[in-house]
């Protein structure tokens, strides 16, 4: 380590500190002389990570000419994007309608998911249903729902209700049932036990315990999680149209394919704006309901 560079004539404090150094070095060997094995391990992990990156670049067939060519084209697109424009008035109406549709998809999808996941969360929480088999099965069930992306669910629902925003609502609902189920059950498991014990001790049965001890504690947490997901679903709902499930995504992907860059820029700005608004609104609501900023999510 470098000694501190310019300071004036070494003061008494400095000499004192330097005198203590050997003693400190003996007292904290790991800091002054880290074990070579640990160093080697760190280096090996870094080398492995970098090696895997190189392998990935090679395996995925990146070439400099493609990268440079692409960057040049991107620059072109960006210059074409300025100034953003919505084209004709008729298109503006179309875009705003699609935006409303996007919001509606996110809102209904989140709401329905919350409604369905509410009982699921209780079923999957180990302190509500003590049966281990039920617990494991419901957790695995929720995990497999979650592992399938919203867009894949959208494709599946399109087969059922046809193209359009309704399929988007159902897709967001399905994939969020998995997420909410997991979050709700974890929230339930982390609750303060005292309230439940009190209800049981004064003669309440299982349902009384859920109604009077668990639900009052867990509702604010659920609410804040639902709002948080509404925010992130607004983002998902903007892209769900790419596969034909309604919202602004289908228009966006069309404009990109048609090289209508000013309109692409307008749509992206529209998305940014709406997401920012929803963020603001939902964080206000969340604050007013739970009275604090942070509720943890995993």
């Amino acid at each position, binding site marked *: 380590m470098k000694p*501190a560079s310019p*300071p004036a004539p070494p003061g008494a404090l400095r000499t004192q500190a330097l005198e203590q150094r050997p003693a400190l070095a003996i007292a904290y060997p790991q800091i002054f002389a880290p074990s070579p094995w640990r160093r080697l391990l760190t280096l090996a992990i870094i080398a492995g*990570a970098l090696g*895997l*990156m190189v*392998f*990935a*670049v090679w*395996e*995925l*067939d*990146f070439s400099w000419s*493609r*990268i440079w*060519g*692409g*960057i040049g*084209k*991107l620059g072109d*697109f960006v210059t074409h994007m300025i100034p953003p424009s919505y084209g004709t008035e008729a298109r503006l109406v179309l875009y705003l309608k699609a935006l*409303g*549709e996007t*919001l*509606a*998809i996110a*809102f*209904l999808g989140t709401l329905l998911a919350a409604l369905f996941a509410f009982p699921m969360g209780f079923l999957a929480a180990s302190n509500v249903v003590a049966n281990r088999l039920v617990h494991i099965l419901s957790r695995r069930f929720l*995990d*497999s729902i979650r*592992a*399938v*992306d919203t*867009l*894949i669910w959208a*494709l*599946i*629902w399109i*087969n*059922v*209700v*046809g193209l359009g*925003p*309704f399929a*988007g609502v*159902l897709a967001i609902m399905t994939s969020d049932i998995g997420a909410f189920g997991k979050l709700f059950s974890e929230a339930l498991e982390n609750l303060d036990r005292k309230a439940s014990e009190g209800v049981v001790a004064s003669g309440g049965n299982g349902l009384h315990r859920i109604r009077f001890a668990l639900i009052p504690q867990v509702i604010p947490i659920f609410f804040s999680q639902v709002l948080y997901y509404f925010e992130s679903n607004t*983002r998902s709902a*903007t*892209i769900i149209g*790419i*596969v034909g499930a*309604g919202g602004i995504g289908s228009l*966006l992907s069309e404009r*990109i394919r048609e*090289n209508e860059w000013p309109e*692409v820029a307008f749509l*992206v700005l529209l*998305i*940014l704006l709406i*997401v*920012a608004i929803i963020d603001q609104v939902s964080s206000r609501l969340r604050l007013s309901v739970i009275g604090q900023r942070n509720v943890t999510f995993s």
Partner: protein
Amino acid sequence: MTTFVRLPDAQLLPHVLTYRRALAARRRQTIAAIIVLGLAIIAAFFMAEVDVLKLVANFTNFTSYLQRIFHFDSGPYTGQLVVLHPGFGTDDWFWGITKWLKLLGETLLIAYLGTAIGAAFAFIFCFHAADNLGKSRTTRWITKRLLEFCRTVPELVFALIFVVAFGVGALAGVLALAIHTAGALGKLFSEVAENIDMKPADGVIASGGNWTEMVRFAVLPQVLSNFTSYGLLRFEINVRGASIMGFVGAGGIGQELLTAIRKFYYADVSAILVLIIVTVMVIDVVTEYVRHHLTGAGR
């Protein structure tokens, strides 16, 4: 016998009234909230073209779709459950395993490379965005807005644009994931950096270190384990994201899945879905194990 102390009615009355007023105000608020929510639901119903009758009428489609993807629809096993022949032979469920595993590997590599590049940029930017470390108000503001932009635009939108610019293939997917990851991780990283103990940083500055040395010797040791943990979490998310990149032509197994769904290769749909679900779950379990280890050792 116990006696209850009770305020005289004359003193009690104002309290009772205040209580009633507060209660009434709360009730009014609740009713207003319910009305607003109800109106929003009705509006959303119309805008999203919700058609419950259609759902009910077609719900058998959903169950029969699930049924169909789990039965062979061609070959010698037509009509049988796929799980009865889970082998890798030409007529079995996982007949395309070599192709699919290769695509799955590609998906994982896209997720990995996207996460790594994104994390590298997040790492560079996060110290500039942190309130306690950023060099000036201007750079802080610019970095924060930049990160916000990167994470707010959905990755698939980036992917769509990049596919046009860089051509069809994994490159577009990697870059799209990288940009989104840089934005998302940059925010989390800077929040971690904002919560550190500033004493070591003051110490380094006081003994003549410059900004880079301060970050290296005072900040980094405090944040590294959390950074790794968040990075792994993001990798998990990106594996999911990479599995659908193929929908827009940006590489990975998504393209194959899209083809199978669109062309009604039912047994293939379930086979690919099972592969994706299993991979995602394995990655989840592994990264969760590593993360617990990291944060446990870090404290």
